[in-house]
């Protein structure tokens, strides 16, 4: 018997053997389940938005838009090497700033936000140094200094908030602020006369930031955490009880120095004149609305 013949024989034997009682169910029953699944997948697909690629960029601030922006920025950063080294005033600098905004959005927890803040503050500082040394346009330098102050302020707020849980981050932020003060001080000597004031302003903000970081208090909780410290007989409260107005965190504060009112923060009248007996070394910051903000 050849192999082919044997195969035919085996095939016949298998076919002739009495099979176990075997009833094939109606295929319609199982098909109902399959069909229901097909309908379900079709419904899900129909519910998905089908927009052309460019329309994704016009969508409201959704995850899709964020995703599209991230992709665009990553592509831009990958394809154009010059973006990373772009300086204020250059065309690619806007892409760099957009990338930083995406970085901020993607930083979901406090730790990540602070790390990103440190990185951005370092960049701004380096940019200021490069611009001043290169005698660049005063307006651009002033804008960069303003951006540096805003970044530093935001960073300080975040670092102070986690000073108890993540002291190492507060230390890093403090180290950066100290370095910033040194750099700005050296920059001040090279700065053009019309920029000196802006640089000095930035130095003051930096010094105040160092103080805030050292004391571990957030400027954002004005009138709340500071009130019990100043008013001995008052108790800590979760709600603001003072007449002080808070300044939005995103809004950079003006850095006018005034003598601090000796009254507790809870009793400070924003319109009251400043007495001559206040301590000169205690300062508060006046915001754009001329409301004093105690720095403790």
């Amino acid at each position, binding site marked *: *018997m050849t*192999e082919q013949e*044997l*195969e035919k024989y*085996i*095939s016949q*034997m*298998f076919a*002739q*053997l*009495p*099979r*176990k*009682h*075997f*009833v*094939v*169910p109606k*295929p319609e*029953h*199982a*098909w109902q*389940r*399959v*069909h229901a*699944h*097909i309908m379900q*997948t079709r419904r899900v697909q129909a519910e998905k938005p089908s927009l052309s690629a460019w329309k994704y960029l016009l969508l409201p601030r959704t995850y899709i838009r964020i995703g599209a922006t991230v992709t665009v920025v990553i592509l831009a950063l990958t394809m154009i090497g010059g973006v990373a080294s772009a300086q204020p005033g250059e065309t690619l600098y806007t892409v760099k700033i957009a990338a930083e905004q995406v970085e901020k959005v993607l930083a979901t927890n406090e730790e990540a936000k602070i790390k990103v803040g440190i990185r951005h503050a370092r960049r701004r500082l380096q940019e200021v140094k490069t611009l001043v040394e290169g005698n660049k346009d005063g307006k651009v330098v002033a804008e960069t200094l303003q951006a540096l102050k805003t970044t530093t302020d935001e960073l300080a707020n975040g670092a102070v908030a986690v000073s108890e849980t993540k002291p190492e981050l507060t230390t890093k932020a403090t180290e950066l602020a100290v370095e910033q003060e040194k750099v700005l001080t050296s920059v001040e000597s090279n700065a053009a006369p019309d920029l000196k004031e802006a640089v000095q302003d930035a130095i003051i903000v930096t010094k105040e930031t160092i103080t805030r970081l050292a004391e571990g208090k957030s400027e954002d909780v004005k009138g709340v955490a500071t009130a019990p410290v100043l008013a001995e007989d008052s108790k800590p409260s979760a709600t603001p009880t003072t007449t002080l107005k808070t300044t939005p965190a995103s809004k950079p504060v003006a850095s006018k120095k005034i003598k601090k009112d000796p009254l507790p923060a809870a009793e400070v009248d924003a319109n009251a004149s400043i007495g001559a007996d206040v301590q000169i070394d205690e300062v508060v910051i006046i915001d754009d609305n001329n409301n004093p903000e105690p720095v403790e």
Partner: protein
Amino acid sequence: MDLKPDSKQLELLVQKAGEGDEVAFGQIYDLYFEKLYRFVYFRVNHREAAEDLVSEVFIKVWGKIAEIQEVSSFNGWIFQIARNLVIDYYRSRKQNIDISLLENVLVYEDNMVDKTNMSFQQKAFLENLQHLTEEQQLVIKLKFLDELDNPDIARILGKSEGAIRVIQHRAINELKSLLK
């Protein structure tokens, strides 16, 4: 019912189903339902479970059919899905069962009445079949009972076609010597 569609017919159906043609997919279902049910039923030995698993096979096929590059491997692929689902079925029941042993379950009647009615040749054939190794029995059954081709068997068992040919060749030679 033609259980072995020609490759061109199957290719067309798979292509259409991949584009979302439900009718074409229904035709594939009709072609494979009984075959798959038999394949699954003799491995789980439970009617409702087999029916559920077969519908699960087709749900998975629907989800992936658009990604199929080579229609020639469709047959092996669909049985591979069925086999994996059988394995998952036992895993979900926390039963450690050797799938190769499971695939060697007797598909044929083994009660006394039917055995008595069997011819001498049939009895001898079944006895000789038991002398083969488990792997050889499995390949022979997949080939002659489930009517699968070597590439399909290779895919299901995760072996090369060459390996399947060798197992099959040795099994047939063994049967040849036993049947002398």
